[in-house]
């Protein structure tokens, strides 16, 4: 996993609440068996049906920070939503509220999902709409989002463990495998009548 410390990039204003993962990537795009190449599915319906949709606008082409409305990533647990955002070049999603599974998936995969007050999101939206070249810095070391042009300097919360894992770019499985002994010990205490599938 790529390490994340400080990222500065341009931002896309996505003024919509309750953007579910079926919108982020419709089911017909889930059929690949590889882990990459999902960018064509990202917001596919909206990109197809609305020429003015933000991601279709040339001025937001190279943005790497998505500034989303509340309840982003609701619905299906598909991690493809995270991959599609990453394949498109996003490294950060900012929102005032995320669906739990989406946020978990994002943070596992190195896409930083940062919670900010809606009032800060509003300010970022305005600044980025007024000037699409506005840059936003997401600083994981300091746990802070900065955008002088939007007059934003806002701390955010992220637990120490996740922060450390992202800063180091560490794979969760390798970390857990260090505790194989504890897992084995736990297994020896499981109730004998618990079901097995084989």
């Amino acid at each position, binding site marked *: 996993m790529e390490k994340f410390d400080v990222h500065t990039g341009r931002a896309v204003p996505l003024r*919509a*609440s*309750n953007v*579910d993962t*079926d*919108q982020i990537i*419709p*089911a*017909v795009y*889930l*059929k*690949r*068996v*590889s*882990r990459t190449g999902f960018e064509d599915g990202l917001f596919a*319906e909206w990109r197809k049906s609305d020429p003015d949709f933000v991601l279709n606008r040339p001025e937001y082409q190279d943005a790497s920070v998505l500034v989303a*409305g*509340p*309840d982003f990533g*609701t*619905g*299906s*647990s*598909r*991690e*493809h939503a*995270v991959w599609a955002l990453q394949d498109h070049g996003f490294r950060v999603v900012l929102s005032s*509220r995320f*669906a*739990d*599974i989406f946020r*978990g*998936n994002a943070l*596992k*995969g190195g896409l930083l999902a940062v919670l900010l007050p809606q009032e800060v999101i509003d300010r970022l939206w305005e600044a980025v709409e007024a000037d699409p070249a506005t840059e936003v810095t997401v600083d994981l070391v300091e746990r802070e989002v900065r955008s002088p042009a939007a007059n934003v300097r806002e701390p955010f919360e992220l*637990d*120490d*463990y996740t922060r450390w894992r992202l800063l180091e770019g560490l794979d*969760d*499985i390798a*970390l*857990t*495998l260090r*505790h*194989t002994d*504890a*897992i084995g010990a*736990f*297994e020896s205490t*499981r*109730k*004998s*009548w*618990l*079901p*097995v*599938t*084989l």
Partner: protein
Amino acid sequence: MARTMAEKVWEEHVVRRADGEPDLLYIDLHLVHEVTSPQAFEGLRLAGRSVRRPDLTIATEDHNVPTQDLLAPIADPVSRKQVETLRKNCSDFGVRLHPMGDIDQGVVHVVGPQLGLTQPGMTVVCGDSHTSTHGAFGALAFGIGTSQVEHVLATQTLTMAPFKTMSVTVDGTLRPGVSAKDIILAVIAKIGTGGGQGYVIEYRGEVIEALSMEARMTVCNMSIEAGARAGMIAPDQTTFDYIEGRPHAPKGADFDAAVEHWKSLRTDEGAVFDAEVVLDADELSPFVTWGTNPGQGVPLDGSVPDPASYEDPSARAAAEKALAYMDLKAGTPMREVRVDTVFLGSCTNGRIEDLRTAAEIIRGRRVAEGVRMLVVPGSMRVKEQANEEGLGRVFEEAGAEWREAGCSMCLGMNPDQLKPGERSASTSNRNFEGRQGRGGRTHLVSPQVAAATAVRGTLSSPADLVAQ
């Protein structure tokens, strides 16, 4: 200290706890399907890892599978590839698979309980958000992403921070024609699609206690639609009776020991939930959605709401957008909304009881002119049982299509899709834009309302049929 059921189950599964780190939680059952698993198996292969406990893992084909002509190869090459990949992965890693044509093939959340694999007090995960279904047994069951699927395959554990707890108490008595589906739609409309975020919901109260296991599964299934990670219902005699005798249920003295343990899981007297919600069942009536998220619902007796009636500007904007997509006008009575498709199925309402309920209403009647009704059993066992009871005949004689098991039009990954502009009454769980096919419009309903709607062609309750 008095504890909730969710806290007890969590504590029983902590493998390792360290300051400043999430808990390492043991997983008792891992359900796998073809859509969210290929990249996880690929990850194992790349890292040279194996599946730690194939004996606690089970796979089925459901999301992509066609629901007719099972013997022909899957027409869509990408769907076929996913199914073939799952078969190869299961055989390479020693995981048991119920493929198409197998009597235990079906929607993953119908198969687990039916085999007796889902039991109280277990931790159950699957790369699918409706894993919350299994909480109906008093299991802690939640959906996970593909990275976590890989994590569970490799280690049989997950690293997780604890959830908060919420109780949803439903007291009173349900009026006739009001079902589990209406309860959960009303809960979601009340707390909102984000209202359960971060919580495990425990459903309680006399109405919940009186529900059958299948109805409890319908309620827990849609917990995720309220944003919750999981839903749970305390195990009781209804639960024990349902499990006893199933293929993977404990037998003899083991069963007695298990029941003893299961009884101890109930939330202690005096335990405190982080949030509490109360619903009066006497006020509930059949519920239908009008918008593009499951929280946008009203009683069937109501009408399409006016976006201007919302004070919150973002709710107002969302309602306007939804009405435009759904092609509905504010003030239209829900009963006047005409559909061209009725879908009866999914892990929400594709179990035998759901089919029985709908068949009872449809028996001797005809699906309305111009309406297509798809009946898709949740599993091949459900189909077999329905055929034994003559339900398949009832659907066919009414002019409905009686299909094979799978997710089907719940998400339209297989050929069962709405065409642009088509409108369905669907017993599934999501009415998102395009969920059932590009440009398709979905109204979420109970099996009762689905059946009555099929007969009348407009959103209806069984009472409307009697009046006819």
